[in-house]
């Protein structure tokens, strides 16, 4: 039961029905990260999946951008309350990467240049639910927004969409990543408003 805030509500933002609870519509593209923005030269960029058996699958930039890519238009929801509707990206579906990977693990730790990590169940990355994106709005993804490439999991809060992603580590057990270790929710479903531990 909420209390009424006397005199509040006169200047409300448009709040389309397709916004998750507690979110508001942003018209810019806010930048949020925990540290300085890494800048990774494309000739040094790699993406590696390490399975639970230690098997490694690595792509360099050329190999990666030669993979079949998709154009995706999705809504994104940041735990700091802003949402952006109809954002357009280009990237490689995680399904495409896993075509050649043997793994029985249920969980993935995504990790990034600069040391960021975040945990995601594998099933949330497959079946057309997630991508490694390297273009935004038809342009190469800017470093501030996670370029050269970032994870894109639009159905979870945006901290799960790791910027500057450089690989996945397959795990049998779920483990907290960077923000999850700092009090944020292990799963992070915006529609169930899973912002913090225990939500």
């Amino acid at each position: 039961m909420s209390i009424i805030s006397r005199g509040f509500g006169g200047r409300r933002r448009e709040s389309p029905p397709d916004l998750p609870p507690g979110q508001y519509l942003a018209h810019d593209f806010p930048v949020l990260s925990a540290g300085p923005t890494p800048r990774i030269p494309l000739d040094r960029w790699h993406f590696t999946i390490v399975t639970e058996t230690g098997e490694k699958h690595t792509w360099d930039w050329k190999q990666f951008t030669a993979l079949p890519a998709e154009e995706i238009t999705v809504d994104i929801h940041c735990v700091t309350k802003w949402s952006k509707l109809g954002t357009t990206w280009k990237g490689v579906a995680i399904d495409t990467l896993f075509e050649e990977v043997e793994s029985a693990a249920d969980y993935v730790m995504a990790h990034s240049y600069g040391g960021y990590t975040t945990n995601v169940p594998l099933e949330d990355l497959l079946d057309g639910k997630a991508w490694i994106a390297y273009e935004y709005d038809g342009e190469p993804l800017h470093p501030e927004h996670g370029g050269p490439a970032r994870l894109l999991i639009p159905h979870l809060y945006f901290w799960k969409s790791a910027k500057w992603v450089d690989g996945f580590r397959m795990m049998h057990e779920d483990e907290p990543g960077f923000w999850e270790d700092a009090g944020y929710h292990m799963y992070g479903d915006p529609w169930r408003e899973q912002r913090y531990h225990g939500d």
Partner: protein
Amino acid sequence: MARAAVSRRLTWRVATVVAARWETPSARTLVLDIPEWPGHLAGQHLDIRLTAEDGYQAQRSYSIASAWPGDGPVEISVQRLEDGEVSPYLTDVVEPGDQIEVRGPVGGWFVWRDTATAPVLLLAGGSGVVPLMAMIRARSLAGGRQPFRLIYSVRTPEDALYAEELRRRGREDSGLDVRFVWTRKAPDDWPHPPKRIDVATVNTYGWPPDFQPDCFVCGPTTFVETAADMLVALGHDPKRIRTERFGGA
């Protein structure tokens, strides 16, 4: 421990505004009495939820400005954003006696603990000074002697939050240096024309990288990007640079 401080379920609590004061013509501090507040670390924030009579709700996050002495009220400082829907309500409508819902504290990364001994460099842009002020206040509350330096970039003297308190603490809090950078208009007796923060300023008024200071950078995105890049360029370890970017509200 931060994890202990945030790993329980965060519940909405009804806070009562017990006092309010203007820090600048567009920034106001609200003093909140929050029942059973569990305490917080300097740098953490809280979430605010407002409900209109027809049930419409809005939530925003605000940095906590005050240190936690073990009991008493919690302060937030809100910068009015002209096109915002929540900040103008908190600056212009709320009065002492009003109640708002809050939950927190939130955040275990952009925090300073008074048990840390490393030198600290605080880089603030505009209202990004709020969580850094909490750190300065927490150090003072603990009687800390850690070498602290704040570089505070702000448009004009009228826009500076806590200007008086910062000047006083710069004189009285042993080991705290405060340096203002005026980007649009400097005080009349200021020796330089206004300018944005630059590498020379960070180099002169910050700590050398070999002191291995913990760096906290907070402000609008462009300020944070620029300032954090300068620290990296000067040789600071990116892992010791913690950033928090302020969005609109």
